């Protein structure tokens, strides 16, 4: 034994005079560190209820529960996460995954309650004392569990694109599409928002899996125009995609197009395998636009004999005559239409109802009639001189360009309007070699046109003059020209809280000379093919039908859909109208196919 070893342990006494480690008031003296993973804080107004927190939670500690305050909001599922602290392990993957960035953790970690059920709470909705806590774990901005940025789409340069009518968007290749598809978080917000409720997450999954056949089948369940919608859809889905909240939304439209591009038209029949059992009933469809053809497709699949009456010499409606080829080439549209025709849908082109065949005879000859005649009459600007020969309608210019006719616009044109037709007409005019000025009464942010369309128009050197109200159209010295008088406008807040209104400033007037003026401020319907009596029996408001639940009208056998029957007036809504009318017609003509239970559910 060593004496030193015997004495050394007595050194412990020295420590008796040191300050103790123990904190006497740990709750006050020792809050959680600034990045501590404590109790959840959710900014419920920022949260959109996408459910990513629920998906990533490996303990199933998060449920999505309905919160009334948020139900029915656009781009909001109406659900909010409820946390179960009997299961939570505070790993904060929910915070890392949160698309809206609304979820974080506080540094609060003490909570006592006698009631076990208390420890289940909807953060941000139920009041908790740590709700305003500034400290605690939050995801670093640079850290993502999914790639926040979109795979860039290759496009023709503005210089190349105005050379002709070649499609501007080149489309993803397989690798790009896989990468883009990988970004999807499968929340389903897009499905809820899409008018046709397309099964977006699943067809995006089919891209990840490389199973394009499955992707095509999924798309055709709800939309027989995937090649078209893959190019020109108004894509409300993307506007609500939660990935876009802190990054770029998934390029759903381009992914849809990618699937169609990967499948050859001749394989459609094999893949879709639409077996048709004839049921012996006949349906007439008026108008071969997206609404009419969608109804025709789904009716044909149910075994109906379908005849589509079309006034123009080709099917497609606005898709063919209203959308320029650089956005939707005929090849894309024809791919969709050809498949519908291949199922045995008969399209009678150049047949105008009311002129060539009367509406009443259709009513007599067919078991049901579906009207989808669209909006074909340009709206009036309601200013003097509007009937000047150098004033053209945007629709006419687009139709001429689509048919290969020269619309005769000259070299310097003014386009009036801020919608998609105005942008299309402008960009078509650029391709026909004209200098284009767009006059719009409000601001760019108020334009109803797709933001990409506006940007592309600007890139193609269309000048946009905002807050410009046309006042009068006058003869120019040269009869091949026309003078437009327009005034500057100030935006005035609506006292009722509506959107700001442009007010003409009488002292700031301009007069400009153009070769022609293209008016593109909206369109209305042409229902002249219906007799007065029929029109009276159909509920019509402001030139549009107001159909019932199954697109039916008060006139037996008559169903309506498309732009002429809905307020949203876009292709995808028309397609859904057609699909829904097909269900309605089938219910009407074959009620025996639907059990009472079905009817209750619907």
């Amino acid at each position, binding site marked *: *034994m*060593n004496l*030193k*070893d*015997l004495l*050394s*342990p007595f*050194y*412990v006494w*020295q*420590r008796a005079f040191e300050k103790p*480690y*123990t904190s006497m008031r740990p709750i006050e003296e020792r809050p*959680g*560190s*600034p*990045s*501590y*993973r404590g109790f959840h804080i959710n900014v419920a107004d920022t949260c959109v209820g996408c459910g*990513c927190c629920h*998906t*990533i939670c*490996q303990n199933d500690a998060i449920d999505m529960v309905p919160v009334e305050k948020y139900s029915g909001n656009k781009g909001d599922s109406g659900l909010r996460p409820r946390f179960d602290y009997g299961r939570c*392990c*505070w*790993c*904060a*993957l929910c915070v*890392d*995954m949160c698309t809206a960035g609304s979820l974080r*953790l506080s540094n609060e970690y003490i909570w006592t309650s006698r009631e076990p059920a208390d420890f289940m709470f909807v953060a941000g909705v139920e009041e908790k004392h740590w709700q305003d806590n500034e400290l605690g*774990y939050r*995801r*670093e901005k*640079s*850290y*993502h*569990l*999914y*790639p926040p940025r979109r795979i860039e789409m290759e496009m023709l340069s503005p210089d190349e694109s105005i050379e002709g009518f070649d499609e501007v968007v080149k489309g993803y290749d397989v690798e790009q599409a896989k990468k883009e598809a*990988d*970004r*999807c*978080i*499968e929340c389903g917000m897009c499905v809820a928002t899409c008018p046709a409720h397309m099964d977006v997450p699943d067809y995006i*999954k089919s891209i*990840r899996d490389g199973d394009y056949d499955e992707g095509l089948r999924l798309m055709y369940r709800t939309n027989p125009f995937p090649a078209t919608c893959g190019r020109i859809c108004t894509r409300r889905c993307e506007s609500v995609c939660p990935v876009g909240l802190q990054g770029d939304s998934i390029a759903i439209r381009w992914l849809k197009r990618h699937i169609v591009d990967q499948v050859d038209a001749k394989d459609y029949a094999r893949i879709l395998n639409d077996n048709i059992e004839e049921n012996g009933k006949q349906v007439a469809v008026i108008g071969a636009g997206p609404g009419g053809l969608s109804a025709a497709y789904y009716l044909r699949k149910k075994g109906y004999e379908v005849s589509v009456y079309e006034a123009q010499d080709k099917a497609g409606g606005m898709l063919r005559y209203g959308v320029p080829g650089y956005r939707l080439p005929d090849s894309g549209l024809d791919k969709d239409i050809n498949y519908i025709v291949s199922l045995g849908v008969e399209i009678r082109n150049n047949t105008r109802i009311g002129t060539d065949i009367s509406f009443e005879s259709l009513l007599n000859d067919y078991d049901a009639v579906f009207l989808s005649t669209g909006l074909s009459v340009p709206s009036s600007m309601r200013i003097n001189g509007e009937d000047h020969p150098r004033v053209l309608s945007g629709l006419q210019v687009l139709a001429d360009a689509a048919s290969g006719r020269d619309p005769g616009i000259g070299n310097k044109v003014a386009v009036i309007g801020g919608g998609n037709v105005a942008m299309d007409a402008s960009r078509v005019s650029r391709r026909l070699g004209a200098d284009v000025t767009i006059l719009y009464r409000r601001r760019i942010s108020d334009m109803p046109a797709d933001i990409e369309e506006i940007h592309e128009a600007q890139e193609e050197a269309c000048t946009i003059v905002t807050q410009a109200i046309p006042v009068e159209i006058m003869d120019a010295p040269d009869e091949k020209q026309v003078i437009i008088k327009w005034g500057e406008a100030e935006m005035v807040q609506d006292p009722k809280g509506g959107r700001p209104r442009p007010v003409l400033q009488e002292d700031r007037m301009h007069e400009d000379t153009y070769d022609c003026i293209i008016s593109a401020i909206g369109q209305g319907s042409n229902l002249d093919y219906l007799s007065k009596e029929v029109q009276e029996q159909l509920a019509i408001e402001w030139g549009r039908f107001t159909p019932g639940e199954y697109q039916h009208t008060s006139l037996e056998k008559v169903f309506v859909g498309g732009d002429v029957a809905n307020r949203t007036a876009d292709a995808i809504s028309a397609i859904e109208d057609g699909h829904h009318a097909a269900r309605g017609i089938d219910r009407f003509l074959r009620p025996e196919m639907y059990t009472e239970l079905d009817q209750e559910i619907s």
Partner: protein
Amino acid sequence: MTQLTGHSASLDFSQPEPVDMSSGKYVKLWQGPQHPGITGNMSLELTLDGDEIIECKTHVGYLHRAFEKLMEGRNYIQNFTVVCRIAVPEPAFNEYLYAEGLEQLSGIEAPERAQWIRTLNLEMMRLASFMMWIGGQSGAFGLYTVPNWTIAYRDYVLDLFEEMTGGRIYHMYMVPGGVRFDLPKDFDKRVKEVMDGAEKLLDQVERVMYNNVVFKARSKGLGIITPEMVDPYGIVGPNARASGIKRDLRKDEPYLVYDQLDFDIISGTGADAYERAYLRLQETRQCISLIRQCMDRMPRSGPLQAEMPNVLHWKIPPGETYVKAECTRGEYGYFMVTDGTEYIRRVFVRGPSYTHAIAVMEKLAVGTNIADIAGLMVSLHTYPPEIER
């Protein structure tokens, strides 16, 4: 090599003669599993002749949570929150190995700064773990002052973890692809403070515990691991190094940034419980030096995460890998198999406790007496949760 004394274990693997319990000469005694603190939930079934142990059998099963199986049903990112639970006092090594394995299998590389922070994190973990171990070893021999010091001081290290990672025990910080977030502001100052204090504490511990006549008397000659035993028994880490086997993955197969740090493998020759304890004390000091080096040398800025695919449907191509790191107890390994799906096909966790707590323990216990068995268990530094993954 010095002469080994005490109960030197032979390499005789033959089955011993069964003990004749009916003779009335022997008593069975269970050590554990009610030892939640020191060695965790495992138990030793001891057969005693007087107070001498003539047979020892390790029993596990009290803590089986089926981690390896659980991981097969969770996707890759979800598992990152599961792995830390496999070794409670040392979650960081699990986090690191799991992340490293996935990165190897999917071809992702963590950025340089993240690698430095990971190294720092692992060394802090080692420090915290050794602090607790010193307390455990001292307490197991009846010296209850030192545990009060070191386990309390470990909390200062856990405070650092809390600041650095957001969690004291389960850090969940080393995500596949890098680390979750940057070091907090003025972290280096606080690390320095804690390290200075730790160095001072270790000096005091050395005086009170290692230069203690009782501790020496009880630990010297106890549980001798001969160099010949090391390979057949799969003994690793300080247990092997105390027998003169210079083996340390940080030097032998450097991972992270260990090749940029200055340190030597510490080894001893005594091979008994005292030698192992002293070696761990030195390694604790080395650990402090490594933490200081990390803080001084790591790049001041830089990305912390590699670009990751969407973790919700992250698929990893078919493959397998074995990744390993030197934890406080030796080689800690993850064997991982992927099959191209969103779920891992198989994870096998190779924890050093498996062999140390079962085969080695059963061997070394024979011939010791009942009062030393707790000290011997701690001396082998085993964690039951990693036996029962």
